[in-house]
């Protein structure tokens, strides 16, 4: 293992401290928690937006705290859901009486902990609603599983629901637009190399030299297939193809996210993007806006994911609205 850390047990504390220290004009850390909140929270007349999950996906989620996006992000231990008491702290810190909206990635742990926190908050008289993001098309949905995983598409939910909340929309309206994003966003990822857990110093899984895994999750959960590392164009084709075959994007306007898993140089993401754009162009799908970068990572995993979001007019406007979140300035 090669990591720049101190005590592995304090990595999430240190990270949230370092983030709060980087942007003191924008955010603060709630003492004795791993919750990052907007400095001006609770913002009067506004629904509070809270997200979070296990750490290791930076800049998700604390990098998305800012005007026009999240009001708070709750950081759990690496790849481990934050506990209900932490989420409750975040909810209480951002509630201005208009209610609080939770954006949850679809992992059993996250759903259980956030739902429990929501119940505790309701018990304290705070209205809480939530949405569960399940954009990853790699692992098929079925009644037999807890459903699809939430990955990079979650960032679009943050952005669009965040912009809606910033406009002063009601809790029900924020929820409605968030659900529309979830219904219209699809992603798929792949990895070239695993990431290393700070606590154990070991790789979360193994990949042979020359081998990649398609459809892998952001915690290294199994994907669809292991095979020889393909050319960038072939990787882009496979990911985009899978996304396109899952939802009818034809004739629509889309937002594209080519997301790096952490260690992949931006150079390679632009190569993937080149091919993604040409595929969409050939299919007559109009790209409204593109995002290329590290948005939902898996520490030092190398690889990428491709996300497409089918936009309606309101989503476009909300996607373009101002955000001063450090990791998503618009």
């Amino acid at each position, binding site marked *: 293992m090669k990591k720049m850390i101190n005590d592995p047990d304090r990595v999430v504390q240190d990270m949230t401290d370092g983030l709060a220290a980087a942007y003191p004009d924008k955010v603060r850390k709630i003492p004795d928690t791993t919750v990052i909140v907007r400095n001006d929270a609770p913002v009067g007349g506004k629904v509070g937006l809270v997200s979070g999950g296990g750490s290791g996906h930076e800049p998700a989620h604390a990098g998305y705290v800012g005007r026009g996006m999240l009001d708070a992000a709750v950081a*759990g*231990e690496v*790849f*481990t*859901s*934050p*506990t*209900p*008491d*932490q989420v409750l702290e975040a909810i209480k810190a951002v509630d201005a009486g208009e209610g609080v909206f939770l954006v949850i990635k679809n*992992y*059993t*742990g996250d759903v*259980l*902990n956030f*739902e*429990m926190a929501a119940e505790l908050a309701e018990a304290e008289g705070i209205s809480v609603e939530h949405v569960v993001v399940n954009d990853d098309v790699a*692992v098929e949905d079925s009644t*037999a*599983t*807890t459903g699809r995983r939430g990955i990079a598409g979650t960032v679009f939910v943050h952005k669009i629901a965040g912009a809606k909340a910033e406009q002063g929309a009601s809790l029900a309206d924020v929820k409605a637009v968030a659900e529309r994003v979830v219904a219209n966003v699809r992603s798929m990822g792949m990895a070239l190399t695993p990431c290393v857990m700070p*606590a154990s110093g070991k790789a979360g899984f193994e990949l042979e030299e020359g081998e990649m895994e398609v459809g892998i*999750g952001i*915690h290294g*959960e*199994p994907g669809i297939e292991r095979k020889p590392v393909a050319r960038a164009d072939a990787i882009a084709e496979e990911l985009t193809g899978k996304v396109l075959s899952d939802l009818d994007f034809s004739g629509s306007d889309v937002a594209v996210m080519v997301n790096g898993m952490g260690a992949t140089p931006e150079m390679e993401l632009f190569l993937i993007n080149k091919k993604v754009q040409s595929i969409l162009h050939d299919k007559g799908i109009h790209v409204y806006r593109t995002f290329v970068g590290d948005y939902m990572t898996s520490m030092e995993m190398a690889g990428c994911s491709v996300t497409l979001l089918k936009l309606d007019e309101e989503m476009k406007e909300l996607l373009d609205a101002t955000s001063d979140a450090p990791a998503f300035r618009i």
Partner: protein
Amino acid sequence: MELNVDDIVQWMINANDNIQENKDDLTTLDQPIGDGDHGINMARGFQEVVAKVSNEHYDTVGAVLKDVAVTLMSKVGGASGPLFGTAFLQMSMTMKALTTVDRDAFVRGLTAALDGVKQRGKADAGEKTMIDVWQPVVTLCKETSDVRADELVQTAQAAMEKTKDMLATKGRAAYFKEKSIGHIDPGAASSYYIFSALAEVLQEKNE
């Protein structure tokens, strides 16, 4: 059967001992069909539970169990934190005013706990989770007028082992689909340790 505040505290101490002792085994169970943290999660949580309940004075059984629940909820993490937290929270609510619990009160508490877990986890028996241990234990207690320690251990252990042949349809293990068959569910195993800890308390009292 009659359990007082001290018995419940002792139950938690025993449970913690079992879990600390089997921490690595629990984690090993969570590797092939999970993310390999269940032992770490449970060991952290129960250590905190013991630190909490052995330093407080409680008037009611409900009060002990509420502290257990809140501690598990905030310290275990993962999926199992809110699930075990919910179990003990629901149990505690049925025992709010009780200084001792008899067999009927205990059955009511266990049933509430099981229902809470099912609701929280949107799960039922047969999905290869902790429920597959809790459910047979609840049934045993319901159907037996005075549960013996060895019966309790046997039932919990057999139930845990049965999860080996099950196909997981809830939790992380569900992502492994058919590959989940052939492995004992980690949450079922830790539930077994919790009930065998209770059996030790019953045994002591009978001696």
